[in-house]
């Protein structure tokens, strides 16, 4: 009796410098330590059947990563979360888990927007606000993007959906950005920096939400599937 569990997890301070490959490896080892009844792929080197939301850049933290695990037994999601959390390394924590109905689209095909929280230690609130105002007035912000095939021009402006928060947080300025993520258009964190005028290596960046964006409504891939954001 197989089942799929979708869960939301964190990638905290302790593990923020792991690459996506490192993260997947750490997950696989935690799976084995926890004795999760994973379904394994066929073939020469069986791997646990699991899939993840879009890879986080190295150095970036998250409170909203998602993964689907295929199990050969029908585990209660709460029990799954409890067992798995006992064996996950520090910084990786399951926050929510639920049984996924058959036929639910894959994370990668559904998610197209992310909410980023950016802490800028050396920034003025007014400056960021001004920058965002200027950006709102234009519909084009073209940069050269380096890819494996070479470089090409990309208009970043349509990839930034909104900046719902710019606020002073102690010594820093905290900015929330809604931006495109995924195969249909993806705004990289360093490009987010280019748009809003900050150095992404100096900022403390956390992904705090991932959504399926339909028009101006944002649906998280888990939990209350109702709309949680509207622009």
């Amino acid at each position, binding site marked *: 009796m197989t089942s799929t569990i979708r869960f939301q997890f964190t990638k905290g301070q*302790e*593990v923020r*410098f*792991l*690459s996506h*490959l*490192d993260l997947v*490896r*750490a997950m*696989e*080892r*935690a*799976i*084995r*330590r926890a*004795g999760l009844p994973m379904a*394994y792929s066929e073939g*020469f*080197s*069986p*791997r*646990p059947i699991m899939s993840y939301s879009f890879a986080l850049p*190295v*150095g970036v933290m998250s409170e909203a990563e998602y993964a689907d695990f295929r199990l050969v037994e029908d585990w209660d999601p709460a029990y799954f979360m409890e067992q798995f959390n006992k*064996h996950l*390394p*520090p*910084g990786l924590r399951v926050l929510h888990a639920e049984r996924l109905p058959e036929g639910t689209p894959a994370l990668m095909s559904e998610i197209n927007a992310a909410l980023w929280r950016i802490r800028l230690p050396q920034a003025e609130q007014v400056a960021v606000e001004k920058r965002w105002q200027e950006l709102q007035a234009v519909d084009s912000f073209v940069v050269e993007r380096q890819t494996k095939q070479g470089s090409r021009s990309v208009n970043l402006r349509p990839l930034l959906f909104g900046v719902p928060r710019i606020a002073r947080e102690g010594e820093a300025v905290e900015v929330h950005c809604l931006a495109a993520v995924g195969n249909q258009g993806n705004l990289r964190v360093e490009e987010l920096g280019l748009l809003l005028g900050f150095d992404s*290596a100096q900022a403390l960046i956390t992904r705090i939400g991932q959504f399926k964006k339909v028009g101006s409504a944002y649906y998280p891939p888990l939990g209350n599937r109702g709309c949680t954001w509207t622009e």
Partner: protein
Amino acid sequence: MDKRLVPLLPLVTKPARYTNSEVNAQHKEWTEDRVTMALAFPDIYDVGMAHLGFKILYALINSRPDALAERVYAPWVDMQQLMIERGIPLTALESGRDVADFDLVGFTLQHELSYTNILKMLDLAGIPRRTQDRREGDPLVLAGGPCAFNVEPLADFFDFVVLGEGEEVIQEILDVVKAAKQSRTPRQETLRELARLKGVYVPSFYRPVYDSGRFQGLEPLYPDLPARIEKRVARDLGSLPFPEEFVVPYTEVIHDRVMVEILRGCTRGCRFCQAGMIYRPVRERDPEQLKEQVAKLVSSTGYDEISLSSLSSGDYTQIRSLVKDLIAAYRGCGVTVSLPSLRLDSFAVELADEIQKARKTGLTFAPEAGTQRLRDVINKNVTDQDLKEVVQAAFQAGWHRIKLYFMIGLPTETEADLDGIAELAHKVLAWGREFRTSRKRPEVTVSMASFVPKPHTPFQWRGQDSLETLRAKQEYLRERLRHPGIQFSFHEVEHSFLEAAFARGDRRLGAVLERAVDLGCQFDSWGDELRFDRWLQAFREAGLDPVDYAQRSLDPEEALPWDHLSPGVDKKFLVREWELAQQAIPTPDCRWDRCTLCGVCFNLQVANRLTEVGSGD
């Protein structure tokens, strides 16, 4: 980890090397009554995390309530630069404390080309390089590992050195250092105390004597010091503790898997091989104990691979039943078994077949020499017939890629032996065409290292070929190996040359090492990091000739800089083996044949210890 490193992490390659917080890392509190030891590996994290010896010591020390151990690795060049710019000293992973704050800083000496990294790490830590410059309050800097058996080039930098197996002597060392810490005993007195432990060598208590540039011997400074320091060795591996947990790294490191040590020592007696001499006798671990260790480690780490490690895993008496049992036990959860050091025989093919049932990637064999005559000289007891059978069996079993290891520049080598290497490669390819069952085209990879004379081996007296000769031999082989289906590679001769000079070095090389580090040499074993011209400059400025150290053939009568460091093997045995080598007479393995009178069992009161053949076989 050290919080000062956090802002540097986005600026360096592979930041996860420096971040700690791995599963099973031990964070013990620093209390006054605890002896603190930094286990310092003289290479980067990615290499050092593979070292089984430190895994054993880490678990062992941390299991003592009155001690703690933390890990230290060499930061890569990019991180070093940032640390120096910002004045951040070398720190330990777990607590982020300065390495200089530890009571003990222990280095492992795995190979000669890591020596510069040791000095570099001391520099970064702000610990004086030379033992004579260290003051009360500085850590005691020690070393162990295979190269401790000729630690003389590093003698000026280590307060004390441990010969042989660490599991038992480390306890005694911790006891001495703990007592010294409590009673605030001065350094020199603590060292006097440590020198009384069996297997502990305090280099500064011995003075070398030279006569017209030639080493004559070492003089102990105190009458109660032993003239020879004998290694520590455990009679029974079963009585030694083995970790139940390994620290599980996040970033990719080499040999990232569960490792258990199935046996220690090897008595095959290959005459070039230092490991075969210094780790004697052979002691096998009980298979039931091994299975328990594996079970604990798999569940505490979550690794998907189990490696059965030793110098020659196919020699383990119950290898077949052990492999079978492990495969059966872990097949269901995607955990595989691997045997890293398989000797060339048909049994090895059967075993490999068992392990790699599905995925027949490549099989590696080490004939070491190209002709039967030279294999008899080096005592690699493999015949042409064996080779043929084993390679054919491998192709028949479905492998298509065979890797062969050879050494060039071995004693008595002639052109015929080089031809033999090329012929063998071509023959293997032909057998592949004839016997392969795989649909893939047969491939042969030939990897050739240069012979390096190592202390405490029968070949220790034989000088290394000159750089020109080695290069010419490589060129000779290159022409004969260039063929579709054959790939080949050579170790760089400059690496082998420096290795030989330091392997047979004496205390005077300490000055060369210091100068080389000052000239920017480090990570010498990393292909493109070796600065050979600077090394030559360092030798020149110290007034020493590396050629003399590496290439001079020594007289069996002359005093050797490592004569006082004893692995238990008698020098007269080595002389005898050296003579037999020149007559191309092999010596059988004492496990299955008569005693070779190497001296280890008699000198150290030990014996080969094989497990009974199990009923499951």
